[in-house]
């Protein structure tokens, strides 16, 4: 339990992180659906201090999203049922992507769709309109809040693999599959994504949950169930990352309840190459920058030269490994 006694370095620690052939200036990205398309938060957050921005899921056509109520606070977390409200890929490539191109940070375009073809068409349209800092795509097969939002892919290993293989043909940029935690084990999904040529997986999207208005005896979300996010799900997310890490060598993007640099370090140690900050942005729009700065301080205090030294550094005793933990 004692703090590392390594020498405290005066050299700035190196935060650069890598997935495939893409280098991020630090391992802290902001999560899809929690940072808009960048413009919304720029008055509150110095975007260029982020490792990257994952944009709100876009589909082929614009979507207005679900009827209110869309959010409910829960203990140390929140439920949402936004329903993939988005401007559609045409507006995305015409307005949002060019705007994002101005910032010195990496952009990952998150895509949600209801068929193989739609996923491919959206990806290809973005690919045709790619800007220089577009690092790649995150494929949302895990939104619990729309009935045609991909979760039918996300809960089937076969369809996940097929979709990954299909999209792999359309881009040389990063192809990241964002998995749902709402399955018995994420291990076969991680393996399927690796087989089909994905560059990474993201874990986790939100956990299915609900809340009840006890006075009206109605669900508090218009769609009955929604997705839980925030600190409440952090232990669950870490276990999912661990499950995937044991089963596959594919790079992992850790997500779920990250508020502080210490939270981020947990995800890195368990095996994430980079992490994403989601719900925390709603509380502090500069949450990602806070995490990145905190990470730098942590590395300095612990005498760690490169953030990559943390990645996948979890020590698990041999007898536990042998016993299957």
């Amino acid at each position, binding site marked *: 339990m004692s703090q590392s006694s390594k020498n405290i370095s005066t050299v700035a620690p190196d935060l650069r992180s890598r997935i495939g052939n893409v280098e991020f200036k630090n391992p802290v990205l902001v999560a899809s659906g929690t940072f808009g398309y960048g413009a919304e938060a720029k008055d509150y957050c110095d975007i260029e201090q982020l490792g990257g921005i994952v944009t709100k899921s876009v589909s082929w056509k614009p979507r207005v999203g679900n009827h209110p109520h869309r959010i409910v606070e829960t203990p140390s977390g929140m439920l949402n049922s936004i329903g993939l409200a988005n401007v559609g890929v045409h507006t995305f490539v015409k307005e949002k992507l060019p705007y994002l191109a101005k910032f010195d940070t990496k952009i990952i375009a998150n895509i949600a769709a209801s068929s193989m073809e739609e996923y491919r068409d959206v990806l290809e349209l973005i690919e045709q309109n790619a800007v220089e800092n577009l690092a790649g795509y995150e494929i949302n097969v895990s939104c619990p809040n729309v009935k045609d939002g991909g979760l039918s892919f996300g809960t089937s290993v076969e369809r996940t693999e097929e979709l990954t293989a299909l999209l792999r043909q359309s881009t040389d940029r990063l192809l990241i599959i964002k998995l749902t935690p709402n399955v018995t084990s994420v291990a076969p999904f991680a393996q399927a994504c690796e087989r089909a040529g994905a560059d990474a997986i993201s874990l986790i999207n939100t956990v299915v949950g609900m809340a009840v208005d006890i006075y009206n005896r109605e669900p508090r979300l218009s769609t009955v169930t929604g997705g839980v996010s925030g600190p409440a799900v952090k232990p669950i997310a870490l276990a999912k990352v661990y499950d995937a890490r044991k089963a596959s060598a594919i790079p992992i993007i850790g997500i779920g309840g990250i508020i502080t640099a210490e939270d981020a370090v947990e995800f890195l140690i368990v095996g994430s190459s980079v992490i994403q900050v989601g*719900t925390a942005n709603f509380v502090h729009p500069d949450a990602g920058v806070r995490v990145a700065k905190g990470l730098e301080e942590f590395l300095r205090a612990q005498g760690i030269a490169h953030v990559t030294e943390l990645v996948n550094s979890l020590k698990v005793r041999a007898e536990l490994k042998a016993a299957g933990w």
Partner: protein
Amino acid sequence: MTPEDSQMLSRVTRRREIAPGLVTLRFLNPKVAHTTVAGQFVNVLPKVGFLDPMLRRPFSVYNIDGDEAEIIIQAHGRGTNILTETREGDMLDVLGPLGNPWNTASGDFKTAVLLIGGVGVASMQLLTRTLVSSDVPVQTFYGARSKTLFALDGLTNLHLSTDDGSEGFHGSNIALLRSQLEEGSIASPKLFVCGPTGMMRAAKALAAEFKIPCELSLETEMACGIGICQGCPVVTDDETFNTTGKRFRLVCMEGPSFAAERIVI
């Protein structure tokens, strides 16, 4: 504005309890104090350093004075209960000002009629100040459950009403206003409305009936207050955005006040 100064820890300099569970908190925040226009709000953490409750709560800016701003809080749930127990000297984490001001420049009215229900008074002090300083006549119809619940500072030309008859007109401020509109005693009015949903709905109907402009300041549940969560929409009928024929507008970004006729309430 730089990213740093739009969210700040602000020391509470004064706490006043108007009635049980109705409290004003004044805090040092030059940015909010100097840039807020009537109708804007701030998003405040219930308790600094705690993850539960996690989300900020929105409050209209009630007053500004030098480098200090003030909010008025009605305790009605977990977050507001905690906030009303904030003590002088404590820190508030304040994000803002957010949202858009009341539209006082629409030019389609001569008299501003402020229609207030309960803690809907929160944005009305600054609105009064703005209107008075531009020499716009103001009439204020302010209803509360009981006379102890009025926060009258900085209001003008008051017509009070209470549910229990303890002060002013015994009944709703809608009924009181209706009688005056019927008399035609208010010259070319525009309604500026904030209060409980039922009152807002009635105000919308009243405005339609008398064909007068009406602006509603709406409240919805908010996570971020700045347009990144998409959590706070109201339903409008003003545009066919896609096949559903419905359009949602974000209260935090496009509101909180909206022209009443377009809002499905």
